[in-house]
Protein backbone atom coordinates (compact mmCIF):
# COMPACT_ATOMS: atom_id res chain seq x y z
CA UNK A 1 0.00 0.00 0.00
CA UNK A 2 2.85 2.34 0.96
CA UNK A 3 4.50 1.42 -2.30
CA UNK A 4 1.39 2.45 -4.15
CA UNK A 5 1.11 5.69 -2.20
CA UNK A 6 4.68 6.67 -3.02
CA UNK A 7 4.14 5.85 -6.68
CA UNK A 8 0.94 7.89 -6.64
CA UNK A 9 2.68 10.89 -5.13
CA UNK A 10 5.55 10.56 -7.60
CA UNK A 11 3.06 10.49 -10.46
CA UNK A 12 1.21 13.52 -9.12
CA UNK A 13 4.49 15.43 -8.79
CA UNK A 14 5.47 14.45 -12.32
CA UNK A 15 2.09 15.50 -13.69
CA UNK A 16 2.26 18.80 -11.86
CA UNK A 17 5.76 19.58 -13.10
CA UNK A 18 4.91 18.54 -16.63
CA UNK A 19 1.69 20.54 -16.84
CA UNK A 20 3.30 23.62 -15.38
CA UNK A 21 6.32 23.45 -17.64
CA UNK A 22 4.39 22.61 -20.77
CA UNK A 23 1.73 25.25 -20.34
CA UNK A 24 4.30 27.86 -19.38
CA UNK A 25 6.56 27.00 -22.27
CA UNK A 26 3.73 27.09 -24.74
CA UNK A 27 2.60 30.46 -23.42
CA UNK A 28 6.08 31.80 -23.95
CA UNK A 29 6.23 30.12 -27.31
CA UNK A 30 3.58 32.61 -28.45
CA UNK A 31 5.93 35.43 -27.50
CA UNK A 32 8.79 33.67 -29.24
CA UNK A 33 6.79 33.09 -32.36
CA UNK A 34 5.65 36.68 -32.60
CA UNK A 35 9.15 37.95 -32.00
CA UNK A 36 10.50 35.60 -34.65
CA UNK A 37 7.76 36.47 -37.11
CA UNK A 38 8.51 40.12 -36.53
CA UNK A 39 12.16 39.68 -37.36
CA UNK A 40 11.41 37.51 -40.39
CA UNK A 41 9.13 40.25 -41.69
CA UNK A 42 11.66 43.00 -40.84
CA UNK A 43 9.74 44.50 -37.92
CA UNK A 44 10.21 44.36 -34.18
CA UNK A 45 7.43 42.20 -32.84
CA UNK A 46 6.03 42.71 -29.30
CA UNK A 47 8.22 45.10 -27.35
CA UNK A 48 5.90 47.28 -25.28
CA UNK A 49 4.71 45.13 -22.37
CA UNK A 50 7.74 44.48 -20.21
CA UNK A 51 11.36 44.29 -21.30
CA UNK A 52 11.51 42.90 -24.88
CA UNK A 53 7.74 42.42 -24.61
CA UNK A 54 8.35 39.50 -22.23
CA UNK A 55 5.14 40.11 -20.30
CA UNK A 56 3.05 39.99 -23.46
CA UNK A 57 1.80 36.38 -22.96
CA UNK A 58 0.62 37.30 -19.48
CA UNK A 59 -1.21 40.33 -20.78
CA UNK A 60 -2.78 38.21 -23.50
CA UNK A 61 -3.92 35.64 -20.99
CA UNK A 62 -5.55 38.27 -18.77
CA UNK A 63 -7.23 39.82 -21.75
CA UNK A 64 -8.59 36.49 -22.97
CA UNK A 65 -9.77 35.46 -19.52
CA UNK A 66 -11.80 38.62 -18.94
CA UNK A 67 -13.79 38.58 -22.16
CA UNK A 68 -17.51 37.99 -22.13
CA UNK A 69 -18.64 34.43 -22.59
CA UNK A 70 -20.77 34.25 -25.72
CA UNK A 71 -22.41 31.16 -27.12
CA UNK A 72 -23.66 31.63 -30.68
CA UNK A 73 -27.37 31.48 -31.37
CA UNK A 74 -28.62 28.03 -32.26
CA UNK A 75 -25.42 26.36 -31.08
CA UNK A 76 -25.34 22.88 -29.65
CA UNK A 77 -24.20 24.02 -26.21
CA UNK A 78 -22.83 20.83 -24.61
CA UNK A 79 -20.97 19.92 -27.78
CA UNK A 80 -19.78 23.50 -28.07
CA UNK A 81 -18.00 23.18 -24.72
CA UNK A 82 -17.03 19.57 -25.22
CA UNK A 83 -15.10 20.56 -28.34
CA UNK A 84 -12.66 22.58 -26.26
CA UNK A 85 -11.95 19.64 -23.99
CA UNK A 86 -11.65 17.34 -26.97
CA UNK A 87 -9.08 19.62 -28.54
CA UNK A 88 -7.07 20.30 -25.40
CA UNK A 89 -7.00 16.94 -23.63
CA UNK A 90 -5.56 14.73 -26.39
CA UNK A 91 -2.84 17.20 -27.25
CA UNK A 92 -1.75 17.35 -23.62
CA UNK A 93 -2.05 13.60 -23.16
CA UNK A 94 0.53 13.19 -25.89
CA UNK A 95 3.09 14.30 -23.31
CA UNK A 96 2.35 11.39 -21.03
CA UNK A 97 4.50 9.01 -23.05
CA UNK A 98 7.40 11.36 -23.75
CA UNK A 99 10.51 10.41 -21.78
CA UNK A 100 12.62 13.45 -20.99
CA UNK A 101 15.62 11.49 -19.88
CA UNK A 102 16.87 8.11 -18.66
CA UNK A 103 15.87 6.55 -15.39
CA UNK A 104 17.54 8.02 -12.30
CA UNK A 105 17.60 7.32 -8.59
CA UNK A 106 16.08 9.76 -6.12
CA UNK A 107 15.94 9.02 -2.36
CA UNK A 108 16.71 5.39 -3.17
CA UNK A 109 13.80 5.05 -5.56
CA UNK A 110 13.97 4.47 -9.27
CA UNK A 111 12.27 7.39 -10.98
CA UNK A 112 11.43 7.60 -14.63
CA UNK A 113 11.05 11.10 -16.02
CA UNK A 114 7.86 10.29 -17.84
CA UNK A 115 4.32 9.80 -16.66
CA UNK A 116 3.47 6.40 -18.04
CA UNK A 117 6.09 4.07 -19.48
CA UNK A 118 3.64 1.81 -21.30
CA UNK A 119 4.73 -0.68 -23.91
CA UNK A 120 2.26 0.76 -26.40
CA UNK A 121 3.58 4.30 -26.22
CA UNK A 122 3.52 4.99 -29.94
CA UNK A 123 0.03 3.54 -30.19
CA UNK A 124 -1.12 6.09 -27.62
CA UNK A 125 0.38 8.85 -29.72
CA UNK A 126 -1.49 7.49 -32.69
CA UNK A 127 -4.74 7.23 -30.75
CA UNK A 128 -4.50 10.74 -29.32
CA UNK A 129 -3.80 12.11 -32.78
CA UNK A 130 -6.98 10.45 -34.00
CA UNK A 131 -8.98 11.80 -31.07
CA UNK A 132 -7.91 15.34 -31.92
CA UNK A 133 -10.17 15.19 -34.98
CA UNK A 134 -13.21 15.24 -32.72
CA UNK A 135 -12.32 18.60 -31.23
CA UNK A 136 -12.27 20.08 -34.69
CA UNK A 137 -15.42 18.42 -35.95
CA UNK A 138 -17.39 19.17 -32.78
CA UNK A 139 -16.40 22.81 -32.73
CA UNK A 140 -17.36 23.30 -36.36
CA UNK A 141 -20.65 21.49 -36.00
CA UNK A 142 -21.69 23.00 -32.71
CA UNK A 143 -20.96 26.60 -33.70
CA UNK A 144 -23.90 26.78 -36.11
CA UNK A 145 -21.85 28.88 -38.50
CA UNK A 146 -21.11 27.97 -42.07
CA UNK A 147 -17.57 29.24 -42.02
CA UNK A 148 -16.81 27.17 -38.98
CA UNK A 149 -18.48 24.12 -40.43
CA UNK A 150 -16.62 24.25 -43.73
CA UNK A 151 -13.37 24.91 -41.94
CA UNK A 152 -13.85 22.01 -39.58
CA UNK A 153 -14.70 19.62 -42.38
CA UNK A 154 -11.63 20.68 -44.31
CA UNK A 155 -9.43 20.32 -41.31
CA UNK A 156 -10.92 16.96 -40.47
CA UNK A 157 -10.27 15.66 -43.95
CA UNK A 158 -6.69 16.92 -43.75
CA UNK A 159 -6.11 15.44 -40.31
CA UNK A 160 -7.50 12.04 -41.17
CA UNK A 161 -5.44 11.89 -44.35
CA UNK A 162 -2.24 12.69 -42.50
CA UNK A 163 -3.15 10.51 -39.56
CA UNK A 164 -2.99 7.50 -41.87
CA UNK A 165 0.36 8.55 -43.29
CA UNK A 166 1.66 9.17 -39.78
CA UNK A 167 0.77 5.65 -38.76
CA UNK A 168 2.52 4.06 -41.68
CA UNK A 169 5.58 6.32 -41.40
CA UNK A 170 6.10 5.38 -37.76
CA UNK A 171 5.84 1.65 -38.52
CA UNK A 172 9.32 1.63 -40.08
CA UNK A 173 10.90 2.90 -36.88
CA UNK A 174 9.04 0.40 -34.72
CA UNK A 175 10.21 -2.32 -37.06
CA UNK A 176 13.82 -1.30 -36.46
CA UNK A 177 13.45 -0.90 -32.71
CA UNK A 178 11.22 -3.94 -32.21
CA UNK A 179 9.17 -2.19 -29.56
CA UNK A 180 6.40 0.38 -29.30
CA UNK A 181 7.62 1.77 -25.99
CA UNK A 182 9.05 5.25 -26.35
CA UNK A 183 11.73 4.49 -23.78
CA UNK A 184 12.60 1.31 -25.62
CA UNK A 185 12.98 3.14 -28.92
CA UNK A 186 15.34 5.70 -27.41
CA UNK A 187 17.35 3.01 -25.67
CA UNK A 188 17.65 1.03 -28.90
CA UNK A 189 19.08 4.08 -30.60
CA UNK A 190 21.37 4.91 -27.70
CA UNK A 191 22.68 1.35 -27.67
CA UNK A 192 23.44 1.09 -31.37
CA UNK A 193 24.74 4.66 -31.44
CA UNK A 194 22.93 5.43 -34.69
CA UNK A 195 19.92 7.66 -34.87
CA UNK A 196 17.07 6.24 -36.91
CA UNK A 197 16.99 9.26 -39.19
CA UNK A 198 19.92 7.66 -40.99
CA UNK A 199 17.93 4.48 -41.62
CA UNK A 200 14.57 6.17 -42.12
CA UNK A 201 15.04 9.53 -43.83
CA UNK A 202 11.84 9.11 -45.84
CA UNK A 203 9.86 8.31 -42.75
CA UNK A 204 11.21 11.41 -41.05
CA UNK A 205 10.17 13.67 -43.91
CA UNK A 206 6.72 12.10 -43.92
CA UNK A 207 6.47 12.48 -40.17
CA UNK A 208 7.45 16.13 -40.42
CA UNK A 209 4.76 16.79 -42.99
CA UNK A 210 2.18 15.00 -40.90
CA UNK A 211 3.25 17.02 -37.91
CA UNK A 212 2.71 20.24 -39.83
CA UNK A 213 -0.66 19.09 -41.09
CA UNK A 214 -1.91 17.82 -37.75
CA UNK A 215 -0.96 20.98 -35.96
CA UNK A 216 -2.36 23.20 -38.69
CA UNK A 217 0.94 24.86 -39.50
CA UNK A 218 1.92 26.37 -42.85
CA UNK A 219 2.05 25.04 -45.55
CA UNK A 220 -0.85 22.80 -44.49
CA UNK A 221 -3.05 25.31 -42.70
CA UNK A 222 -5.89 25.46 -45.19
CA UNK A 223 -8.48 25.03 -42.47
CA UNK A 224 -7.46 28.32 -40.93
CA UNK A 225 -7.23 30.12 -44.26
CA UNK A 226 -7.78 33.58 -42.77
CA UNK A 227 -8.71 35.14 -46.07
CA UNK A 228 -11.44 32.69 -47.05
CA UNK A 229 -12.67 31.13 -43.85
CA UNK A 230 -11.92 33.76 -41.19
CA UNK A 231 -9.76 31.20 -39.33
CA UNK A 232 -12.22 28.44 -39.86
CA UNK A 233 -13.59 26.15 -37.22
CA UNK A 234 -12.99 28.32 -34.14
CA UNK A 235 -14.51 31.52 -35.50
CA UNK A 236 -17.43 31.44 -33.07
CA UNK A 237 -15.31 30.94 -29.98
CA UNK A 238 -14.30 33.92 -27.88
CA UNK A 239 -12.11 34.69 -24.92
CA UNK A 240 -10.25 31.84 -23.27
CA UNK A 241 -12.37 29.38 -25.20
CA UNK A 242 -10.80 30.81 -28.33
CA UNK A 243 -7.38 30.76 -26.68
CA UNK A 244 -7.63 27.04 -26.05
CA UNK A 245 -7.67 26.06 -29.70
CA UNK A 246 -4.45 27.70 -30.93
CA UNK A 247 -2.83 26.74 -27.65
CA UNK A 248 -3.74 23.12 -28.23
CA UNK A 249 -2.93 22.76 -31.85
CA UNK A 250 -0.34 25.40 -32.65
CA UNK A 251 1.76 25.05 -29.52
CA UNK A 252 1.03 21.93 -27.50
CA UNK A 253 0.70 19.71 -30.55
CA UNK A 254 3.84 21.10 -32.14
CA UNK A 255 5.91 20.65 -28.99
CA UNK A 256 4.59 17.15 -28.37
CA UNK A 257 5.00 15.95 -31.93
CA UNK A 258 8.46 17.50 -32.13
CA UNK A 259 9.43 15.65 -29.00
CA UNK A 260 8.08 12.43 -30.48
CA UNK A 261 9.98 13.07 -33.70
CA UNK A 262 13.13 13.52 -31.62
CA UNK A 263 12.42 10.26 -29.82
CA UNK A 264 11.76 8.37 -33.02
CA UNK A 265 14.40 9.78 -35.30
CA UNK A 266 17.01 11.76 -33.32
CA UNK A 267 17.83 9.39 -30.50
CA UNK A 268 15.77 11.09 -27.80
CA UNK A 269 17.94 12.12 -24.86
CA UNK A 270 21.09 10.44 -26.19
CA UNK A 271 24.08 12.65 -26.83
CA UNK A 272 27.58 13.30 -25.51
CA UNK A 273 27.57 13.88 -21.76
CA UNK A 274 29.14 17.32 -21.76
CA UNK A 275 26.64 18.89 -19.37
CA UNK A 276 27.17 16.46 -16.55
CA UNK A 277 24.15 14.89 -14.89
CA UNK A 278 21.71 17.12 -16.71
CA UNK A 279 23.14 16.24 -20.09
CA UNK A 280 20.26 13.98 -21.33
CA UNK A 281 17.64 16.60 -20.47
CA UNK A 282 19.60 19.38 -22.13
CA UNK A 283 20.07 17.33 -25.25
CA UNK A 284 16.43 16.37 -25.40
CA UNK A 285 15.22 19.94 -24.97
CA UNK A 286 17.78 21.30 -27.44
CA UNK A 287 16.73 18.81 -30.07
CA UNK A 288 13.02 19.35 -29.45
CA UNK A 289 13.21 23.11 -29.57
CA UNK A 290 15.36 23.12 -32.69
CA UNK A 291 12.53 21.22 -34.33
CA UNK A 292 9.90 23.56 -32.92
CA UNK A 293 11.96 26.49 -34.17
CA UNK A 294 12.13 24.88 -37.60
CA UNK A 295 8.36 24.49 -37.70
CA UNK A 296 7.75 28.12 -36.72
CA UNK A 297 10.35 29.23 -39.24
CA UNK A 298 8.47 27.36 -41.97
CA UNK A 299 5.23 28.91 -40.80
CA UNK A 300 6.41 32.42 -41.44
CA UNK A 301 8.28 31.78 -44.68
CA UNK A 302 6.22 29.50 -46.85
CA UNK A 303 3.01 30.14 -48.79
CA UNK A 304 0.03 27.85 -48.33
CA UNK A 305 -0.99 24.84 -50.40
CA UNK A 306 -4.42 24.65 -51.97
CA UNK A 307 -6.99 22.55 -50.16
CA UNK A 308 -7.10 20.21 -53.14
CA UNK A 309 -3.35 19.66 -53.06
CA UNK A 310 -3.15 18.98 -49.35
CA UNK A 311 -5.36 15.93 -49.29
CA UNK A 312 -4.20 14.70 -52.64
CA UNK A 313 -0.55 14.92 -51.63
CA UNK A 314 -1.35 12.86 -48.57
CA UNK A 315 -3.26 10.10 -50.31
CA UNK A 316 -1.52 9.96 -53.64
CA UNK A 317 2.12 10.67 -52.82
CA UNK A 318 2.78 10.25 -49.14
CA UNK A 319 0.73 7.13 -48.44
CA UNK A 320 2.33 5.14 -51.31
CA UNK A 321 5.73 6.42 -50.18
CA UNK A 322 5.05 5.34 -46.63
CA UNK A 323 3.90 1.90 -47.76
CA UNK A 324 7.00 1.51 -49.94
CA UNK A 325 9.17 2.62 -47.04
CA UNK A 326 7.53 0.06 -44.79
CA UNK A 327 8.08 -2.76 -47.25
CA UNK A 328 11.69 -1.81 -47.94
CA UNK A 329 12.38 -1.61 -44.22
CA UNK A 330 10.75 -4.98 -43.64
CA UNK A 331 12.84 -6.58 -46.39
CA UNK A 332 16.00 -4.98 -45.07
CA UNK A 333 15.30 -6.07 -41.50
CA UNK A 334 14.52 -9.56 -42.70
CA UNK A 335 17.69 -10.03 -44.73
CA UNK A 336 20.13 -7.91 -42.76
CA UNK A 337 18.69 -8.77 -39.37
CA UNK A 338 18.15 -5.14 -38.39
Amino acid at each position, binding site marked *: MAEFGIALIATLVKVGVLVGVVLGVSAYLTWFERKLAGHIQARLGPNVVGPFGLLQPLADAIKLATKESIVPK*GADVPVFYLAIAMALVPSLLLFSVIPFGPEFTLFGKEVKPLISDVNIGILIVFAMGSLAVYGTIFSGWASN*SKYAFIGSLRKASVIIAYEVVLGFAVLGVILLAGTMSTVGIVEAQAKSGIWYILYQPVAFVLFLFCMLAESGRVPFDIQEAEAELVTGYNVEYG*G*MKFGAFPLAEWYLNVIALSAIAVILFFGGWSGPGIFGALSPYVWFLVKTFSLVFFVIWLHWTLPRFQAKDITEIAWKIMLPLALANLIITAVAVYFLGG
Partner: protein
Amino acid sequence: MEYIGFLIFFGIMVVIALVMVSLNYLLGPKNPEEWKDYPYECGVPLYDENAQTTFHQGYYLLGLLLLLFDIEAAFLFPWTVVYRYLGVFGFIEMFLFVLILTYGLLYAWKKGALNWQFEMEEE
Protein backbone atom coordinates in the same frame (compact mmCIF):
# COMPACT_ATOMS: atom_id res chain seq x y z
CA MET B 1 0.74 1.68 -12.28
CA GLU B 2 1.76 3.12 -15.61
CA TYR B 3 -1.83 3.18 -16.78
CA ILE B 4 -2.99 4.67 -13.50
CA GLY B 5 -0.52 7.47 -14.14
CA PHE B 6 -2.11 7.95 -17.50
CA LEU B 7 -5.56 8.06 -15.93
CA ILE B 8 -4.49 10.61 -13.33
CA PHE B 9 -3.01 12.73 -16.05
CA PHE B 10 -6.24 12.43 -18.01
CA GLY B 11 -8.28 13.53 -15.01
CA ILE B 12 -6.11 16.57 -14.40
CA MET B 13 -6.26 17.48 -18.07
CA VAL B 14 -10.05 17.37 -18.02
CA VAL B 15 -10.06 19.66 -14.98
CA ILE B 16 -7.74 22.11 -16.73
CA ALA B 17 -9.94 22.05 -19.82
CA LEU B 18 -13.02 22.73 -17.68
CA VAL B 19 -11.26 25.64 -16.03
CA MET B 20 -10.41 27.10 -19.41
CA VAL B 21 -14.00 26.67 -20.53
CA SER B 22 -15.50 28.36 -17.50
CA LEU B 23 -12.90 31.12 -17.07
CA ASN B 24 -14.79 33.60 -19.22
CA TYR B 25 -18.02 32.89 -17.46
CA LEU B 26 -16.40 33.55 -14.10
CA LEU B 27 -14.29 36.57 -14.95
CA GLY B 28 -15.91 38.18 -17.94
CA PRO B 29 -18.65 40.83 -17.97
CA LYS B 30 -22.22 39.75 -18.57
CA ASN B 31 -24.29 42.14 -20.63
CA PRO B 32 -26.16 40.21 -23.31
CA GLU B 33 -27.60 42.08 -26.26
CA GLU B 34 -29.91 40.94 -28.97
CA TRP B 35 -27.48 40.77 -31.86
CA LYS B 36 -24.45 39.73 -29.92
CA ASP B 37 -24.86 36.00 -30.22
CA TYR B 38 -25.50 35.89 -33.93
CA PRO B 39 -23.22 33.54 -35.79
CA TYR B 40 -20.69 35.30 -37.93
CA GLU B 41 -21.83 36.01 -41.47
CA CYS B 42 -19.97 39.04 -42.80
CA GLY B 43 -22.10 41.49 -40.80
CA VAL B 44 -25.40 40.83 -42.53
CA PRO B 45 -28.50 39.22 -41.01
CA LEU B 46 -28.47 35.46 -41.22
CA TYR B 47 -29.51 34.11 -44.55
CA ASP B 48 -30.08 30.71 -43.04
CA GLU B 49 -30.85 30.18 -39.37
CA ASN B 50 -29.35 26.74 -39.27
CA ALA B 51 -25.86 25.90 -40.51
CA GLN B 52 -25.95 22.32 -39.33
CA THR B 53 -27.15 20.95 -42.62
CA THR B 54 -25.90 18.45 -45.11
CA PHE B 55 -22.40 18.58 -46.47
CA HIS B 56 -20.53 17.27 -49.43
CA GLN B 57 -20.63 13.48 -49.51
CA GLY B 58 -16.96 13.38 -50.51
CA TYR B 59 -16.04 14.00 -46.87
CA TYR B 60 -17.96 10.89 -45.98
CA LEU B 61 -15.89 8.91 -48.47
CA LEU B 62 -12.70 10.24 -46.93
CA GLY B 63 -14.00 9.23 -43.53
CA LEU B 64 -14.58 5.71 -44.79
CA LEU B 65 -11.05 5.62 -46.15
CA LEU B 66 -9.71 6.73 -42.79
CA LEU B 67 -11.56 3.90 -41.08
CA LEU B 68 -10.10 1.45 -43.54
CA PHE B 69 -6.50 2.58 -43.40
CA ASP B 70 -6.33 3.62 -39.77
CA ILE B 71 -7.57 0.25 -38.65
CA GLU B 72 -5.21 -1.52 -41.01
CA ALA B 73 -2.33 0.50 -39.61
CA ALA B 74 -3.42 -0.44 -36.12
CA PHE B 75 -3.27 -4.09 -37.17
CA LEU B 76 0.26 -3.61 -38.43
CA PHE B 77 1.54 -2.15 -35.15
CA PRO B 78 1.67 -5.42 -33.21
CA TRP B 79 3.08 -7.16 -36.23
CA THR B 80 6.04 -4.78 -36.36
CA VAL B 81 6.87 -5.47 -32.73
CA VAL B 82 7.07 -9.24 -33.09
CA TYR B 83 8.36 -9.18 -36.65
CA ARG B 84 11.80 -10.54 -35.75
CA TYR B 85 10.34 -13.59 -34.05
CA LEU B 86 7.95 -14.53 -36.81
CA GLY B 87 10.49 -15.45 -39.46
CA VAL B 88 9.43 -16.22 -42.99
CA PHE B 89 5.80 -16.57 -41.95
CA GLY B 90 5.52 -12.98 -40.77
CA PHE B 91 7.38 -11.81 -43.81
CA ILE B 92 4.95 -13.38 -46.27
CA GLU B 93 1.85 -12.53 -44.26
CA MET B 94 2.91 -8.91 -44.12
CA PHE B 95 3.38 -8.83 -47.86
CA LEU B 96 -0.09 -10.23 -48.45
CA PHE B 97 -1.58 -7.79 -45.98
CA VAL B 98 0.13 -4.75 -47.45
CA LEU B 99 -0.74 -5.98 -50.94
CA ILE B 100 -4.44 -6.06 -50.10
CA LEU B 101 -4.10 -2.66 -48.49
CA THR B 102 -2.45 -1.29 -51.59
CA TYR B 103 -5.26 -2.72 -53.66
CA GLY B 104 -7.72 -0.81 -51.53
CA LEU B 105 -5.78 2.38 -52.05
CA LEU B 106 -5.56 1.80 -55.79
CA TYR B 107 -9.29 1.15 -55.95
CA ALA B 108 -10.11 4.39 -54.16
CA TRP B 109 -7.62 6.23 -56.34
CA LYS B 110 -8.91 4.86 -59.63
CA LYS B 111 -12.52 5.42 -58.73
CA GLY B 112 -11.76 9.04 -57.94
CA ALA B 113 -12.47 8.96 -54.21
CA LEU B 114 -9.17 10.69 -53.49
CA ASN B 115 -9.83 13.69 -55.68
CA TRP B 116 -10.61 16.79 -53.68
CA GLN B 117 -14.28 17.71 -54.02
CA PHE B 118 -14.40 14.51 -56.04
CA GLU B 119 -15.02 15.78 -59.50
CA MET B 120 -14.86 12.62 -61.56
CA GLU B 121 -12.25 12.66 -64.26
CA GLU B 122 -13.56 13.02 -67.78
CA GLU B 123 -13.66 9.68 -69.50
